[in-house]
Protein backbone atom coordinates (compact mmCIF):
# COMPACT_ATOMS: atom_id res chain seq x y z
CA UNK A 1 0.00 0.00 0.00
CA UNK A 2 2.81 2.32 0.91
CA UNK A 3 4.35 2.03 -2.54
CA UNK A 4 1.00 2.72 -4.14
CA UNK A 5 0.72 5.89 -2.11
CA UNK A 6 4.24 6.88 -3.11
CA UNK A 7 3.36 6.10 -6.71
CA UNK A 8 0.45 8.52 -6.53
CA UNK A 9 3.01 11.30 -6.19
CA UNK A 10 4.88 10.16 -9.29
CA UNK A 11 5.59 12.61 -12.01
CA UNK A 12 6.14 11.65 -15.62
CA UNK A 13 9.91 10.94 -15.30
CA UNK A 14 9.32 8.74 -12.25
CA UNK A 15 6.52 6.88 -13.98
CA UNK A 16 8.68 6.45 -17.08
CA UNK A 17 11.54 5.07 -15.01
CA UNK A 18 9.19 2.69 -13.22
CA UNK A 19 7.61 1.42 -16.43
CA UNK A 20 11.00 1.09 -18.11
CA UNK A 21 12.27 -0.99 -15.19
CA UNK A 22 9.18 -3.20 -15.38
CA UNK A 23 9.54 -3.61 -19.14
CA UNK A 24 13.24 -4.46 -18.92
CA UNK A 25 12.52 -6.94 -16.13
CA UNK A 26 9.81 -8.54 -18.27
CA UNK A 27 12.27 -9.05 -21.12
CA UNK A 28 14.91 -10.52 -18.79
CA UNK A 29 12.26 -12.81 -17.33
CA UNK A 30 11.37 -13.93 -20.84
CA UNK A 31 15.02 -14.85 -21.47
CA UNK A 32 15.16 -16.76 -18.19
CA UNK A 33 11.92 -18.66 -18.87
CA UNK A 34 13.06 -19.48 -22.39
CA UNK A 35 16.21 -21.07 -21.04
CA UNK A 36 14.03 -23.00 -18.58
CA UNK A 37 11.69 -24.14 -21.34
CA UNK A 38 14.61 -25.27 -23.50
CA UNK A 39 16.11 -27.14 -20.58
CA UNK A 40 12.78 -28.89 -19.98
CA UNK A 41 12.35 -29.86 -23.63
CA UNK A 42 15.88 -31.18 -23.84
CA UNK A 43 16.91 -32.51 -20.43
CA UNK A 44 20.26 -33.75 -21.77
CA UNK A 45 21.20 -30.42 -23.27
CA UNK A 46 24.43 -30.30 -21.26
CA UNK A 47 26.60 -27.23 -21.68
CA UNK A 48 24.08 -25.60 -24.04
CA UNK A 49 21.63 -25.15 -21.17
CA UNK A 50 24.29 -23.54 -18.99
CA UNK A 51 25.36 -21.28 -21.85
CA UNK A 52 21.75 -20.19 -22.41
CA UNK A 53 21.38 -19.40 -18.74
CA UNK A 54 24.68 -17.49 -18.77
CA UNK A 55 23.40 -15.44 -21.68
CA UNK A 56 20.68 -14.13 -19.41
CA UNK A 57 23.36 -12.46 -17.30
CA UNK A 58 24.12 -9.41 -19.53
CA UNK A 59 20.46 -8.27 -19.62
CA UNK A 60 20.14 -8.96 -15.90
CA UNK A 61 23.26 -6.90 -15.27
CA UNK A 62 21.89 -4.13 -17.50
CA UNK A 63 18.64 -3.95 -15.51
CA UNK A 64 20.59 -3.91 -12.25
CA UNK A 65 22.86 -1.15 -13.59
CA UNK A 66 19.94 1.01 -14.60
CA UNK A 67 18.22 0.37 -11.24
CA UNK A 68 21.41 1.34 -9.41
CA UNK A 69 21.98 4.56 -11.35
CA UNK A 70 18.31 5.54 -11.08
CA UNK A 71 18.29 4.85 -7.33
CA UNK A 72 21.49 6.85 -6.93
CA UNK A 73 19.68 9.87 -8.33
CA UNK A 74 16.71 9.70 -5.94
CA UNK A 75 18.27 11.80 -3.11
CA UNK A 76 19.09 14.53 -5.64
CA UNK A 77 15.82 14.42 -7.54
CA UNK A 78 13.46 14.00 -4.59
CA UNK A 79 15.03 15.70 -1.56
CA UNK A 80 11.56 16.44 -0.19
CA UNK A 81 10.78 12.72 -0.16
CA UNK A 82 13.98 11.94 1.77
CA UNK A 83 13.25 14.81 4.20
CA UNK A 84 9.67 13.64 4.65
CA UNK A 85 10.63 10.04 5.27
CA UNK A 86 13.32 11.11 7.74
CA UNK A 87 10.80 13.33 9.51
CA UNK A 88 8.49 10.33 9.70
CA UNK A 89 11.23 8.47 11.53
CA UNK A 90 12.75 6.40 8.73
CA UNK A 91 16.46 5.81 9.14
CA UNK A 92 19.14 5.38 6.50
CA UNK A 93 18.55 1.62 6.24
CA UNK A 94 14.81 1.96 5.85
CA UNK A 95 15.05 4.66 3.20
CA UNK A 96 17.45 2.52 1.22
CA UNK A 97 15.19 -0.48 1.54
CA UNK A 98 12.24 1.66 0.42
CA UNK A 99 14.11 2.77 -2.69
CA UNK A 100 15.13 -0.85 -3.33
CA UNK A 101 11.57 -2.01 -2.72
CA UNK A 102 10.25 0.38 -5.34
CA UNK A 103 12.63 -1.08 -7.92
CA UNK A 104 11.94 -4.65 -6.83
CA UNK A 105 8.21 -4.07 -7.12
CA UNK A 106 8.57 -2.84 -10.70
CA UNK A 107 10.73 -5.86 -11.54
CA UNK A 108 8.30 -8.26 -9.89
CA UNK A 109 5.42 -6.82 -11.88
CA UNK A 110 7.34 -7.22 -15.14
CA UNK A 111 8.37 -10.78 -14.27
CA UNK A 112 4.86 -11.80 -13.27
CA UNK A 113 3.42 -10.49 -16.53
CA UNK A 114 5.98 -12.53 -18.45
CA UNK A 115 5.27 -15.61 -16.33
CA UNK A 116 1.54 -15.29 -17.01
CA UNK A 117 2.24 -14.96 -20.73
CA UNK A 118 4.52 -18.00 -20.53
CA UNK A 119 1.84 -20.07 -18.80
CA UNK A 120 -0.85 -18.96 -21.24
CA UNK A 121 1.33 -19.77 -24.25
CA UNK A 122 2.21 -23.18 -22.80
CA UNK A 123 -1.47 -23.97 -22.79
CA UNK A 124 -1.28 -25.18 -26.44
CA UNK A 125 -1.79 -21.69 -27.80
CA UNK A 126 1.68 -21.27 -29.22
CA UNK A 127 2.44 -22.97 -32.50
CA UNK A 128 4.97 -25.77 -32.87
CA UNK A 129 7.72 -23.25 -33.61
CA UNK A 130 7.66 -21.98 -30.04
CA UNK A 131 7.08 -25.38 -28.43
CA UNK A 132 10.71 -26.17 -27.56
CA UNK A 133 11.22 -22.69 -26.08
CA UNK A 134 8.24 -23.12 -23.79
CA UNK A 135 8.93 -26.72 -22.80
CA UNK A 136 5.49 -27.68 -24.02
CA UNK A 137 4.23 -31.08 -23.04
CA UNK A 138 6.61 -31.31 -20.10
CA UNK A 139 5.15 -30.72 -16.62
CA UNK A 140 6.44 -27.48 -15.14
CA UNK A 141 8.07 -27.80 -11.72
CA UNK A 142 6.62 -24.91 -9.71
CA UNK A 143 9.85 -24.02 -7.94
CA UNK A 144 11.84 -23.45 -11.13
CA UNK A 145 10.08 -20.37 -12.57
CA UNK A 146 9.65 -18.85 -9.11
CA UNK A 147 13.36 -19.20 -8.35
CA UNK A 148 14.35 -17.84 -11.73
CA UNK A 149 11.96 -14.91 -11.56
CA UNK A 150 12.90 -13.99 -7.99
CA UNK A 151 16.37 -13.41 -9.37
CA UNK A 152 15.36 -10.24 -11.28
CA UNK A 153 13.78 -8.18 -8.45
CA UNK A 154 16.38 -9.45 -5.99
CA UNK A 155 19.35 -8.43 -8.14
CA UNK A 156 17.88 -5.07 -9.13
CA UNK A 157 16.72 -4.31 -5.58
CA UNK A 158 20.09 -5.12 -4.03
CA UNK A 159 21.86 -3.07 -6.70
CA UNK A 160 19.55 -0.13 -6.00
CA UNK A 161 20.01 -0.34 -2.23
CA UNK A 162 23.80 -0.55 -2.51
CA UNK A 163 23.94 2.38 -4.93
CA UNK A 164 22.55 4.95 -2.47
CA UNK A 165 25.27 6.12 -0.07
CA UNK A 166 24.16 6.07 3.56
CA UNK A 167 24.97 9.73 4.22
CA UNK A 168 22.74 10.86 1.35
CA UNK A 169 19.70 9.35 3.01
CA UNK A 170 19.81 12.16 5.56
CA UNK A 171 18.32 15.51 4.59
CA UNK A 172 21.12 17.87 3.74
CA UNK A 173 23.52 14.93 3.71
CA UNK A 174 24.30 15.46 0.06
CA UNK A 175 27.90 16.50 -0.05
CA UNK A 176 29.76 17.82 -3.02
CA UNK A 177 31.13 14.72 -4.66
CA UNK A 178 34.87 14.49 -5.09
CA UNK A 179 36.07 15.62 -8.42
CA UNK A 180 39.67 14.44 -8.89
CA UNK A 181 41.06 11.09 -9.93
CA UNK A 182 43.78 9.35 -7.91
CA UNK A 183 47.05 8.18 -9.46
CA UNK A 184 45.92 4.54 -9.36
CA UNK A 185 42.62 5.45 -11.00
CA UNK A 186 44.61 6.80 -13.96
CA UNK A 187 47.55 4.37 -14.06
CA UNK A 188 45.47 1.17 -13.89
CA UNK A 189 43.30 1.78 -16.97
CA UNK A 190 46.25 3.04 -19.02
CA UNK A 191 48.16 -0.12 -18.10
CA UNK A 192 45.16 -2.29 -19.01
CA UNK A 193 44.72 -0.59 -22.38
CA UNK A 194 48.40 -0.79 -23.31
CA UNK A 195 48.87 -4.40 -22.19
CA UNK A 196 45.53 -5.48 -23.69
CA UNK A 197 46.22 -3.87 -27.06
CA UNK A 198 49.75 -5.29 -27.15
CA UNK A 199 48.57 -8.81 -26.30
CA UNK A 200 45.85 -8.63 -28.92
CA UNK A 201 48.36 -7.55 -31.56
CA UNK A 202 50.59 -10.46 -30.58
CA UNK A 203 47.68 -12.90 -30.66
CA UNK A 204 46.56 -11.68 -34.08
CA UNK A 205 49.99 -11.37 -35.70
CA UNK A 206 50.08 -13.12 -39.09
CA UNK A 207 52.42 -15.91 -38.03
CA UNK A 208 50.65 -16.70 -34.75
CA UNK A 209 50.01 -20.36 -33.97
CA UNK A 210 46.36 -21.32 -34.38
CA UNK A 211 44.64 -21.72 -31.03
CA UNK A 212 43.89 -25.41 -30.47
CA UNK A 213 40.77 -24.63 -28.45
CA UNK A 214 38.98 -21.70 -30.10
CA UNK A 215 36.12 -20.03 -28.24
CA UNK A 216 32.82 -20.21 -30.10
CA UNK A 217 31.21 -16.82 -29.80
CA UNK A 218 27.43 -16.61 -29.52
CA UNK A 219 25.13 -14.55 -31.72
CA UNK A 220 26.62 -16.07 -34.86
CA UNK A 221 29.90 -14.24 -34.36
CA UNK A 222 32.09 -17.21 -35.30
CA UNK A 223 35.01 -18.14 -33.12
CA UNK A 224 38.15 -16.50 -31.81
CA UNK A 225 41.18 -17.46 -29.75
CA UNK A 226 41.27 -17.25 -25.98
CA UNK A 227 44.26 -14.89 -26.09
CA UNK A 228 42.55 -12.43 -28.42
CA UNK A 229 39.33 -12.42 -26.42
CA UNK A 230 41.12 -11.95 -23.09
CA UNK A 231 43.33 -9.19 -24.52
CA UNK A 232 40.31 -7.41 -25.99
CA UNK A 233 38.42 -7.68 -22.68
CA UNK A 234 41.38 -6.15 -20.83
CA UNK A 235 41.71 -3.24 -23.25
CA UNK A 236 37.93 -2.63 -23.32
CA UNK A 237 37.84 -2.57 -19.53
CA UNK A 238 40.82 -0.21 -19.50
CA UNK A 239 39.20 2.12 -22.02
CA UNK A 240 35.97 2.14 -20.01
CA UNK A 241 37.83 2.95 -16.81
CA UNK A 242 39.83 5.61 -18.62
CA UNK A 243 36.69 7.42 -19.80
CA UNK A 244 36.30 9.43 -16.58
CA UNK A 245 39.88 10.73 -16.43
CA UNK A 246 39.79 11.42 -20.18
CA UNK A 247 36.66 13.53 -19.74
CA UNK A 248 38.36 15.46 -16.94
CA UNK A 249 41.39 16.10 -19.16
CA UNK A 250 39.16 17.17 -22.03
CA UNK A 251 37.61 19.70 -19.66
CA UNK A 252 41.03 21.02 -18.68
CA UNK A 253 41.95 21.29 -22.35
CA UNK A 254 38.78 23.27 -23.04
CA UNK A 255 39.65 25.82 -20.36
CA UNK A 256 43.35 26.03 -21.17
CA UNK A 257 45.12 29.35 -21.64
CA UNK A 258 43.02 32.46 -21.22
CA UNK A 259 39.53 31.11 -21.59
CA UNK A 260 36.46 33.12 -22.48
CA UNK A 261 33.54 32.67 -20.07
CA UNK A 262 32.07 30.12 -22.46
CA UNK A 263 35.20 27.95 -22.51
CA UNK A 264 35.79 28.49 -18.79
CA UNK A 265 32.30 27.35 -17.78
CA UNK A 266 32.19 24.47 -20.27
CA UNK A 267 35.67 23.18 -19.45
CA UNK A 268 35.65 23.50 -15.69
CA UNK A 269 32.13 22.11 -15.55
CA UNK A 270 33.19 19.05 -17.52
CA UNK A 271 36.23 18.48 -15.29
CA UNK A 272 34.06 18.75 -12.18
CA UNK A 273 31.41 16.35 -13.46
CA UNK A 274 33.76 13.83 -15.09
CA UNK A 275 33.73 11.60 -12.03
CA UNK A 276 29.98 11.29 -12.03
CA UNK A 277 29.35 11.25 -15.76
CA UNK A 278 32.22 8.86 -16.48
CA UNK A 279 30.77 5.47 -15.45
CA UNK A 280 27.38 5.62 -17.21
CA UNK A 281 28.91 7.13 -20.32
CA UNK A 282 31.67 4.50 -20.32
CA UNK A 283 29.11 1.68 -20.07
CA UNK A 284 27.01 3.18 -22.86
CA UNK A 285 30.07 3.63 -25.08
CA UNK A 286 31.20 0.05 -24.47
CA UNK A 287 27.75 -1.33 -25.27
CA UNK A 288 27.37 0.81 -28.40
CA UNK A 289 30.83 -0.21 -29.61
CA UNK A 290 30.06 -3.90 -29.12
CA UNK A 291 26.66 -3.68 -30.76
CA UNK A 292 28.02 -1.77 -33.76
CA UNK A 293 30.83 -4.28 -34.17
CA UNK A 294 28.33 -7.13 -34.05
CA UNK A 295 26.06 -5.47 -36.61
CA UNK A 296 29.02 -4.85 -38.89
CA UNK A 297 29.97 -8.52 -38.62
CA UNK A 298 26.39 -9.59 -39.33
CA UNK A 299 26.27 -7.42 -42.42
CA UNK A 300 29.55 -8.87 -43.68
CA UNK A 301 28.60 -12.48 -42.93
CA UNK A 302 25.31 -13.67 -44.42
CA UNK A 303 22.89 -15.79 -42.36
CA UNK A 304 24.61 -14.91 -39.10
CA UNK A 305 22.00 -12.49 -37.75
CA UNK A 306 19.66 -13.75 -35.07
CA UNK A 307 16.62 -12.27 -33.41
CA UNK A 308 17.35 -13.08 -29.77
CA UNK A 309 20.79 -11.43 -29.59
CA UNK A 310 19.25 -8.41 -31.28
CA UNK A 311 16.55 -8.16 -28.60
CA UNK A 312 19.20 -8.62 -25.93
CA UNK A 313 21.33 -5.89 -27.48
CA UNK A 314 18.34 -3.54 -27.60
CA UNK A 315 17.60 -4.19 -23.93
CA UNK A 316 21.19 -3.62 -22.81
CA UNK A 317 21.47 -0.51 -24.99
CA UNK A 318 18.20 0.86 -23.63
CA UNK A 319 19.25 0.32 -20.03
CA UNK A 320 22.67 1.90 -20.61
CA UNK A 321 21.09 4.91 -22.33
CA UNK A 322 18.45 5.28 -19.62
CA UNK A 323 21.20 5.19 -16.99
CA UNK A 324 22.98 8.05 -18.78
CA UNK A 325 19.75 10.06 -18.95
CA UNK A 326 19.11 9.45 -15.25
CA UNK A 327 22.63 10.57 -14.31
CA UNK A 328 22.32 13.67 -16.51
CA UNK A 329 19.07 14.58 -14.79
CA UNK A 330 20.76 14.15 -11.43
CA UNK A 331 23.68 16.38 -12.38
CA UNK A 332 21.33 18.98 -13.79
CA UNK A 333 19.30 19.14 -10.58
CA UNK A 334 22.44 19.25 -8.49
CA UNK A 335 23.61 22.24 -10.46
CA UNK A 336 20.35 24.16 -10.24
CA UNK A 337 21.82 26.43 -7.55
CA UNK A 338 24.84 27.19 -9.68
CA UNK A 339 22.71 27.87 -12.73
CA UNK A 340 20.54 30.24 -10.74
CA UNK A 341 23.59 32.03 -9.36
CA UNK A 342 25.02 32.42 -12.86
CA UNK A 343 21.74 33.79 -14.17
CA UNK A 344 21.63 36.23 -11.26
CA UNK A 345 25.10 37.40 -12.19
CA UNK A 346 23.66 38.27 -15.57
CA UNK A 347 24.97 35.33 -17.59
CA UNK A 348 22.63 34.93 -20.52
CA UNK A 349 20.79 31.62 -20.99
CA UNK A 350 22.39 31.55 -24.41
CA UNK A 351 25.84 31.49 -22.81
CA UNK A 352 24.83 28.66 -20.47
CA UNK A 353 23.29 26.76 -23.37
CA UNK A 354 26.45 27.34 -25.38
CA UNK A 355 28.55 25.99 -22.51
CA UNK A 356 26.40 22.85 -22.38
CA UNK A 357 26.63 22.44 -26.15
CA UNK A 358 30.41 22.85 -26.11
CA UNK A 359 30.67 20.39 -23.23
CA UNK A 360 28.49 17.89 -25.10
CA UNK A 361 30.64 18.25 -28.18
CA UNK A 362 33.80 17.64 -26.14
CA UNK A 363 32.24 14.62 -24.42
CA UNK A 364 31.10 13.25 -27.78
CA UNK A 365 34.59 13.58 -29.23
CA UNK A 366 36.16 11.84 -26.25
CA UNK A 367 33.63 9.02 -26.36
CA UNK A 368 34.16 8.63 -30.11
CA UNK A 369 37.85 8.05 -29.40
CA UNK A 370 37.34 5.48 -26.62
CA UNK A 371 34.38 3.81 -28.33
CA UNK A 372 36.15 3.77 -31.67
CA UNK A 373 39.23 2.16 -30.11
CA UNK A 374 37.07 -0.46 -28.36
CA UNK A 375 35.19 -1.24 -31.57
CA UNK A 376 38.38 -1.37 -33.67
CA UNK A 377 40.02 -3.81 -31.26
CA UNK A 378 36.85 -5.94 -31.20
CA UNK A 379 36.55 -5.94 -34.99
CA UNK A 380 40.20 -6.97 -35.31
CA UNK A 381 39.62 -9.89 -32.96
CA UNK A 382 36.59 -11.14 -34.90
CA UNK A 383 38.45 -11.78 -38.13
Amino acid at each position, binding site marked *: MFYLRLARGYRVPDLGRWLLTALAAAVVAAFLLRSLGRAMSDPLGGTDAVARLLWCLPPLAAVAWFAAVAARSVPARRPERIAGLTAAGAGSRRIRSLIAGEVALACTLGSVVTLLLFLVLRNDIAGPSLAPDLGMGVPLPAAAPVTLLALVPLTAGIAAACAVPANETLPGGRTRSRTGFGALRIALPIGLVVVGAALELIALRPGAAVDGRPIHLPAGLGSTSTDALGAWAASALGLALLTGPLLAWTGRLLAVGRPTPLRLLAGRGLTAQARRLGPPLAVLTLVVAMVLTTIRYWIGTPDSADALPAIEACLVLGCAAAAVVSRLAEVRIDRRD*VTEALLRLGASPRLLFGAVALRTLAVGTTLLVTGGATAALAAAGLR
Partner: protein
Amino acid sequence: MSAAPPDNDVVWARGIVKSHYGTPALRGISIGVRDGEVLAVTGPRGSGKSTLLGCLSAQLAVDEGEVWFNSSPVHTLGRAGRERLRRDRFGFVGSEPHLVPELTARENVALPLLLAGAGNKAAYTAADEWLERLDVGDVARQRPDRLVQGQCQRIAVARALAPLPPVVFADDPTAPLHREAAEQVLRILTSAARSHQLTLVLATHDPELVRFADRAVALVDGRLTAPAAPVPRGTPAQGTPGASAVTATRR
Protein backbone atom coordinates in the same frame (compact mmCIF):
# COMPACT_ATOMS: atom_id res chain seq x y z
CA MET B 1 0.00 58.08 -5.89
CA SER B 2 2.93 60.24 -4.94
CA ALA B 3 4.49 62.79 -7.21
CA ALA B 4 7.59 62.10 -9.29
CA PRO B 5 10.54 61.04 -7.13
CA PRO B 6 13.49 63.31 -6.41
CA ASP B 7 16.13 63.38 -9.09
CA ASN B 8 18.78 61.85 -6.89
CA ASP B 9 16.91 58.56 -6.44
CA VAL B 10 18.89 55.94 -8.34
CA VAL B 11 16.37 53.14 -7.80
CA TRP B 12 12.79 53.73 -6.84
CA ALA B 13 9.63 51.71 -6.68
CA ARG B 14 6.02 52.72 -6.46
CA GLY B 15 3.20 50.56 -5.11
CA ILE B 16 4.85 47.24 -5.88
CA VAL B 17 2.86 44.10 -5.16
CA LYS B 18 4.37 40.64 -5.45
CA SER B 19 3.12 37.26 -4.34
CA HIS B 20 4.67 33.81 -4.36
CA TYR B 21 2.15 31.21 -5.52
CA GLY B 22 -0.71 33.15 -4.03
CA THR B 23 1.03 34.10 -0.78
CA PRO B 24 1.42 37.87 -0.76
CA ALA B 25 5.04 38.87 -0.06
CA LEU B 26 4.87 42.59 -0.85
CA ARG B 27 1.61 44.50 -0.45
CA GLY B 28 2.14 47.84 -2.09
CA ILE B 29 5.58 49.21 -1.30
CA SER B 30 6.92 52.58 -2.39
CA ILE B 31 10.57 53.19 -1.73
CA GLY B 32 13.35 55.35 -3.10
CA VAL B 33 17.07 54.65 -2.89
CA ARG B 34 19.24 57.76 -3.15
CA ASP B 35 22.39 57.82 -5.17
CA GLY B 36 25.43 56.80 -3.13
CA GLU B 37 23.60 56.00 0.09
CA VAL B 38 23.69 52.87 2.21
CA LEU B 39 20.08 51.91 2.81
CA ALA B 40 19.22 49.18 5.31
CA VAL B 41 15.98 47.22 4.91
CA THR B 42 15.21 45.55 8.21
CA GLY B 43 12.47 43.21 9.28
CA PRO B 44 11.94 39.74 10.67
CA ARG B 45 12.08 36.59 8.56
CA GLY B 46 9.28 36.35 6.06
CA SER B 47 8.66 40.10 6.10
CA GLY B 48 9.44 40.36 2.39
CA LYS B 49 12.99 41.75 2.47
CA SER B 50 14.35 39.25 -0.02
CA THR B 51 11.38 39.71 -2.34
CA LEU B 52 11.79 43.48 -2.20
CA LEU B 53 15.49 43.18 -3.06
CA GLY B 54 14.63 40.71 -5.79
CA CYS B 55 12.13 43.14 -7.33
CA LEU B 56 14.45 46.15 -7.04
CA SER B 57 17.44 44.24 -8.48
CA ALA B 58 15.49 43.09 -11.57
CA GLN B 59 15.53 39.43 -10.59
CA LEU B 60 11.80 39.14 -10.02
CA ALA B 61 9.08 40.69 -12.13
CA VAL B 62 6.58 42.65 -10.05
CA ASP B 63 2.88 41.75 -10.15
CA GLU B 64 1.76 45.37 -9.84
CA GLY B 65 3.49 48.71 -9.47
CA GLU B 66 6.57 50.27 -10.99
CA VAL B 67 10.32 49.94 -10.53
CA TRP B 68 12.64 52.52 -12.02
CA PHE B 69 16.41 52.63 -12.31
CA ASN B 70 18.10 55.91 -13.29
CA SER B 71 14.87 57.27 -14.78
CA SER B 72 14.28 54.23 -16.95
CA PRO B 73 11.56 51.67 -16.22
CA VAL B 74 12.58 48.23 -15.02
CA HIS B 75 9.10 46.75 -14.67
CA THR B 76 8.52 46.88 -18.42
CA LEU B 77 11.81 45.20 -19.31
CA GLY B 78 11.78 41.69 -20.75
CA ARG B 79 13.98 38.90 -19.50
CA ALA B 80 16.93 39.85 -21.69
CA GLY B 81 16.74 43.48 -20.64
CA ARG B 82 16.66 42.58 -16.95
CA GLU B 83 19.60 40.26 -17.52
CA ARG B 84 21.62 43.03 -19.10
CA LEU B 85 20.71 45.40 -16.28
CA ARG B 86 21.80 42.87 -13.65
CA ARG B 87 25.03 42.16 -15.46
CA ASP B 88 26.04 45.74 -16.21
CA ARG B 89 24.53 47.82 -13.42
CA PHE B 90 23.81 45.68 -10.36
CA GLY B 91 25.85 43.59 -7.96
CA PHE B 92 24.26 41.03 -5.70
CA VAL B 93 25.32 39.23 -2.51
CA GLY B 94 22.92 36.63 -1.15
CA SER B 95 22.67 35.05 2.27
CA GLU B 96 24.53 32.10 0.82
CA PRO B 97 27.67 32.50 -1.28
CA HIS B 98 26.38 30.51 -4.31
CA LEU B 99 29.81 30.36 -5.87
CA VAL B 100 30.39 28.24 -8.95
CA PRO B 101 31.98 25.18 -7.32
CA GLU B 102 34.29 24.22 -10.16
CA LEU B 103 35.89 27.65 -10.49
CA THR B 104 38.66 28.89 -8.22
CA ALA B 105 38.07 31.91 -5.98
CA ARG B 106 39.68 34.36 -8.39
CA GLU B 107 37.83 32.90 -11.37
CA ASN B 108 34.58 33.28 -9.46
CA VAL B 109 35.35 36.93 -8.76
CA ALA B 110 36.53 37.59 -12.30
CA LEU B 111 33.48 35.90 -13.85
CA PRO B 112 31.09 38.90 -13.80
CA LEU B 113 33.78 41.05 -15.36
CA LEU B 114 34.42 38.45 -18.04
CA LEU B 115 30.69 38.15 -18.66
CA ALA B 116 30.52 41.90 -19.11
CA GLY B 117 33.22 41.63 -21.75
CA ALA B 118 36.27 42.82 -19.82
CA GLY B 119 39.69 41.58 -20.90
CA ASN B 120 41.21 38.61 -19.13
CA LYS B 121 44.04 40.58 -17.59
CA ALA B 122 41.88 43.39 -16.27
CA ALA B 123 39.34 40.93 -14.86
CA TYR B 124 41.90 38.86 -12.99
CA THR B 125 43.78 41.91 -11.71
CA ALA B 126 40.55 43.34 -10.28
CA ALA B 127 39.67 39.93 -8.85
CA ASP B 128 43.03 39.62 -7.08
CA GLU B 129 42.75 43.15 -5.69
CA TRP B 130 39.28 42.59 -4.25
CA LEU B 131 40.20 39.20 -2.81
CA GLU B 132 43.20 40.83 -1.12
CA ARG B 133 40.99 43.61 0.25
CA LEU B 134 38.57 41.08 1.71
CA ASP B 135 41.36 39.08 3.37
CA VAL B 136 40.97 36.04 1.18
CA GLY B 137 43.90 36.73 -1.14
CA ASP B 138 45.76 33.67 0.13
CA VAL B 139 43.05 31.29 -1.09
CA ALA B 140 42.60 32.92 -4.50
CA ARG B 141 43.57 29.74 -6.32
CA GLN B 142 41.49 27.36 -4.22
CA ARG B 143 38.08 26.01 -5.13
CA PRO B 144 35.13 26.85 -2.87
CA ASP B 145 34.72 23.26 -1.66
CA ARG B 146 38.07 23.54 0.11
CA LEU B 147 37.08 26.77 1.92
CA VAL B 148 34.98 27.49 4.96
CA GLN B 149 31.66 29.29 4.65
CA GLY B 150 33.06 32.61 5.90
CA GLN B 151 35.73 32.67 3.22
CA CYS B 152 33.18 31.77 0.56
CA GLN B 153 30.95 34.63 1.64
CA ARG B 154 33.85 37.07 1.41
CA ILE B 155 34.54 35.78 -2.09
CA ALA B 156 30.87 36.36 -2.93
CA VAL B 157 31.18 39.94 -1.65
CA ALA B 158 34.30 40.41 -3.76
CA ARG B 159 32.43 39.04 -6.76
CA ALA B 160 29.65 41.59 -6.29
CA LEU B 161 32.03 44.51 -5.82
CA ALA B 162 34.71 43.74 -8.42
CA PRO B 163 32.85 45.14 -11.44
CA LEU B 164 32.07 48.31 -9.37
CA PRO B 165 28.38 48.29 -10.25
CA PRO B 166 26.45 51.49 -9.51
CA VAL B 167 24.10 49.61 -7.15
CA VAL B 168 24.93 46.66 -4.92
CA PHE B 169 22.14 44.63 -3.34
CA ALA B 170 23.06 42.60 -0.28
CA ASP B 171 20.38 40.22 0.97
CA ASP B 172 21.35 39.27 4.52
CA PRO B 173 25.00 38.87 3.51
CA THR B 174 26.12 38.16 7.05
CA ALA B 175 23.76 35.22 7.64
CA PRO B 176 26.45 32.54 7.34
CA LEU B 177 29.05 34.51 9.29
CA HIS B 178 29.74 34.74 12.99
CA ARG B 179 29.48 38.12 14.65
CA GLU B 180 33.07 39.25 14.24
CA ALA B 181 33.35 38.26 10.60
CA ALA B 182 29.90 39.72 9.92
CA GLU B 183 31.02 43.11 11.24
CA GLN B 184 34.18 43.01 9.18
CA VAL B 185 32.42 42.05 5.98
CA LEU B 186 29.79 44.74 6.49
CA ARG B 187 32.47 47.31 7.22
CA ILE B 188 34.28 46.41 4.01
CA LEU B 189 31.02 46.40 2.06
CA THR B 190 29.91 49.79 3.34
CA SER B 191 33.33 51.43 3.12
CA ALA B 192 33.78 50.15 -0.41
CA ALA B 193 30.37 51.52 -1.30
CA ARG B 194 31.22 54.92 0.19
CA SER B 195 34.70 55.18 -1.29
CA HIS B 196 33.52 54.23 -4.78
CA GLN B 197 30.22 56.14 -4.50
CA LEU B 198 28.24 52.95 -4.96
CA THR B 199 24.69 52.67 -3.74
CA LEU B 200 24.19 49.81 -1.32
CA VAL B 201 20.83 48.28 -0.42
CA LEU B 202 21.33 46.03 2.56
CA ALA B 203 18.64 43.70 3.87
CA THR B 204 19.24 42.39 7.36
CA HIS B 205 17.22 40.78 10.13
CA ASP B 206 19.72 42.01 12.72
CA PRO B 207 18.69 45.48 13.95
CA GLU B 208 22.21 45.98 15.35
CA LEU B 209 23.72 46.08 11.89
CA VAL B 210 21.59 49.08 10.97
CA ARG B 211 24.32 51.32 12.35
CA PHE B 212 26.36 50.63 9.21
CA ALA B 213 23.65 52.26 7.10
CA ASP B 214 22.90 55.92 6.35
CA ARG B 215 19.18 55.28 6.50
CA ALA B 216 16.93 52.39 7.38
CA VAL B 217 13.43 51.27 6.50
CA ALA B 218 11.55 48.51 8.26
CA LEU B 219 9.35 45.91 6.62
CA VAL B 220 6.66 43.91 8.39
CA ASP B 221 4.41 41.47 6.54
CA GLY B 222 5.16 43.01 3.19
CA ARG B 223 4.51 46.61 4.21
CA LEU B 224 6.86 49.42 5.12
CA THR B 225 6.16 50.32 8.72
CA ALA B 226 8.39 53.17 9.74
CA PRO B 227 10.29 54.69 6.85
CA ALA B 228 13.62 56.25 7.75
CA ALA B 229 13.71 54.74 11.22
CA PRO B 230 14.90 51.32 12.34
CA VAL B 231 12.40 49.31 14.34
CA PRO B 232 14.02 47.59 17.30
CA ARG B 233 12.69 44.10 17.61
CA GLY B 234 13.30 41.13 19.87
CA THR B 235 16.13 38.70 19.18
CA PRO B 236 15.48 37.29 15.74
CA ALA B 237 15.51 33.54 15.15
CA GLN B 238 18.91 32.14 14.21
CA GLY B 239 19.67 29.66 11.45
CA THR B 240 17.75 29.15 8.26
CA PRO B 241 14.11 28.09 8.63
CA GLY B 242 14.52 24.94 6.52
CA ALA B 243 17.50 23.70 8.49
CA SER B 244 15.87 24.30 11.86
CA ALA B 245 12.73 22.47 10.79
CA VAL B 246 14.81 19.51 9.72
CA THR B 247 17.07 19.39 12.78
CA ALA B 248 14.06 19.61 15.02
CA THR B 249 12.62 16.45 13.56
CA ARG B 250 15.90 14.55 13.34
CA ARG B 251 16.89 12.52 16.36
